């Protein structure tokens, strides 16, 4: 038999210089998952196919083993996902034996609830909010578990682990419940829901180190590959997918790239990289001089971009 004490005090990947809390963070996240299952009637795990939500799935497996994850996964599909992500999602769900709910932004557009953006920076990222809020209402979800982290962005740094949203899905950032010690207050009224962030205290490097240590499979676009791309505003955009708008004077070239986040294709830029294994990716993140969301055009729209989106109900 093993001694868990040793396990916690000496993480296997210590020599790589990543945050050693990876293990303490894991125990904290598992605690949060169990609180969700115990305190709410209809939780759901919001699954995007990105590394953060894949990490959530592994943590949920650990929290409830040997039982199955006691809630469904839900994907809000913008229709602009990388095909590799969708393929990966379907395989994972089958292995887990859990229910997958998919709701499409295209449906919200067809129903006239949202209007597709046009132009150079057109993206469906913002439109997800409406589809998400409709799905929450449709299924009467009272807790939506997401992979947001406080290190991602300044407004997210102020997010609670249990974050209450009103009937309109809105975040009242000035009137948040204080969270003391380990105690999570999930009391809500009918119509309200709680956004839950089990990996709030993880950094990008913590997530990558965890994926490395746990040997978790992730979509191939996270690793360096050859891709036809073009440059705009100093960022590298995929030229292989028609949903990414490209002007005629923007010339296509082939580069070795990988994606650091896997959001909607239309707002996720690639980075030049030769990191084609998890070990190389972890090393690259550790030495990186650019923050993760530096490659997300949705955050560059204004200094307060994320806060505004969150007030409207965005994840």
């Amino acid at each position, binding site marked *: *038999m*093993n*001694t*868990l*004490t040793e*396990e916690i005090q000496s993480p296997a990947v*210590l020599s790589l*210089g990543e*945050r*050693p*809390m990876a293990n*303490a963070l894991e*125990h*904290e996240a*598992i*605690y949060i998952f*169990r*609180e969700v*299952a*115990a305190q709410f009637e209809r939780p759901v795990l919001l699954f995007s196919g990105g590394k953060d939500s894949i990490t959530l799935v592994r943590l949920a497996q*650990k*929290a*409830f*083993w*040997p*039982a*199955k994850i006691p809630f469904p996964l839900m994907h809000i599909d913008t229709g602009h996902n990388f095909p590799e992500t969708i393929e990966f999602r379907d395989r994972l769900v089958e292995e887990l034996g859990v229910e997958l709910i998919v709701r499409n932004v295209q449906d919200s557009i067809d129903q006239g609830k949202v209007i597709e953006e046009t132009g150079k920076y057109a993206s469906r990222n913002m439109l997800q909010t409406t589809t998400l809020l409709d799905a929450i209402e449709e299924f009467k979800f009272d807790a939506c578990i997401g992979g947001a982290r*406080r*290190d991602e*962005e*300044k*407004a*997210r*740094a*102020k997010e609670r682990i249990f974050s209450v949203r009103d009937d309109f899905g809105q975040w009242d*950032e*000035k009137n*948040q*419940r*204080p*969270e*003391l*010690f*380990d*105690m999570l*207050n999930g*009391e*809500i*009224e009918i119509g309200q829901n709680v956004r839950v962030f089990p990996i*709030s*205290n993880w950094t990008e490097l913590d997530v990558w180190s965890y994926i490395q240590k746990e040997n978790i499979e992730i979509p191939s676009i996270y690793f360096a590959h050859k891709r036809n791309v073009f440059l705009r505003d100093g960022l590298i955009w995929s030229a292989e997918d028609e949903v990414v708008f490209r002007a005629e004077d923007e010339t296509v070239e082939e580069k070795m790239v990988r994606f650091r986040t896997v959001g909607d294709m239309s707002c996720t830029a690639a980075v030049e990289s030769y990191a084609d294994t998890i070990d190389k990716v972890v090393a690259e993140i550790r030495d*990186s*001089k*650019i*923050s993760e969301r*530096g490659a997300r055009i949705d955050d560059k729209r204004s*200094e*307060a971009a994320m*806060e*505004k989106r969150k007030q409207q109900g965005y994840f």
Partner: protein
Amino acid sequence: MEVLKIATAGSVDDGKSTLIGRLLYDTKSLTDDKLEAIEKTSKQKGYDYLDFSLATDGLVAEREQGITIDVAHIYFSTASKSYIIADTPGHVEYTRNMVTGASTSQAAIILIDARKGVIEQTNRHFFINNLLRVKDVIVAINKMDLVDYSQEVFNNIKADFEKLMDKRDYQEQKITFIPVSALKGDNVVNRTENMTWYQGQTLLEHLEELDLQDIYNTGTPRFPVQYVVRPKTEEFHDFRGFTGKVYGGELNVGDEIVVLPSMTRSKIKNIYFYNEEYKTAPRRSSVTITLEDEVNVSRGDMLVKVGDLPTIDKQLTATVSWMDSSSLTTGGKYVVQHGINKVLAKVDTIEHKINPDYSGIEANATTLQMNDIAKVRLKLNRPIFYDSFKDHRTNGSFIIIDSRTNNTAGVGFIE
């Protein structure tokens, strides 16, 4: 490598955000794009220096007013430690955030403006960090550049602060004074030529050497059951796993335990973490435990070692910090959440209010307003299993929920 959670406290304009920004900058924790954003915004505002507070002030209202209104979490690391800073605002009306930040921190930085010295706010910041039994407090006397790096000014402020220290309840708290200039970078990460009279460590040097010997390790394990796992599959047909987090000490396979409140005795059969079995569940591990006997255990019950029982009672006295805009009143009914366990509570008496600035107590209070701190007696509708906060930080604290709004309205530290 270790992780240190630090809470910061300071009044408006004490330069707290600047200090944190300086820590990030001098430890090279700011990425190029973040630095670029700070440079750009500083220039737009017409500053001839980098406004590091822009690195942390996250909400629009905060940037408009140039103040911090909510707890923000900031992450950085050095070669030997990882740090999580809870940046908490210093305004009177936001004391609740300071209590919140301190509740999860092992160390606290209290900022003092060298030009102003110890002010009423300082007393409050110290009082709260002492009340919450934060083990290490660093008093950073900031803006030394604006008082000509005067040793006399530093010594006078230190002497004033030391008068407060005699009054503190938690005498073992370690307190260290450091003269700094966050704006100029003196004694934050790097040593300075400007204060040769100061021989001590810089702020970061001090943090790097803090002994993290744990104040939460009391040697008395408490295991509140969060959730019962019953897979009901063929392979695990009779499996009943009690999941939870271990507080205060460790649990081992074979330990004789008592289930509270039923007082049923059993032995720990297995300890699982995911699909692996272990013989020890260390403090703060989230594990799944099975017992030798078929015992009825559900959420809110607690497993403790035989001969190591907490207090089991339907009443308690606690120091309460009130955090809600609607006041607490004698006779008022609330939900008390003690760990994961919820019970109904009635305010029996408010024994007295405690001025959180060491100026004494106020008897005959019947209500508590936001930011008030008081000794309160509560009656509960059923017994809970608690320790005193002094002995057990986790099992000695609770939150108070207002069932009309569901807000977390206060926090209590049990006597």
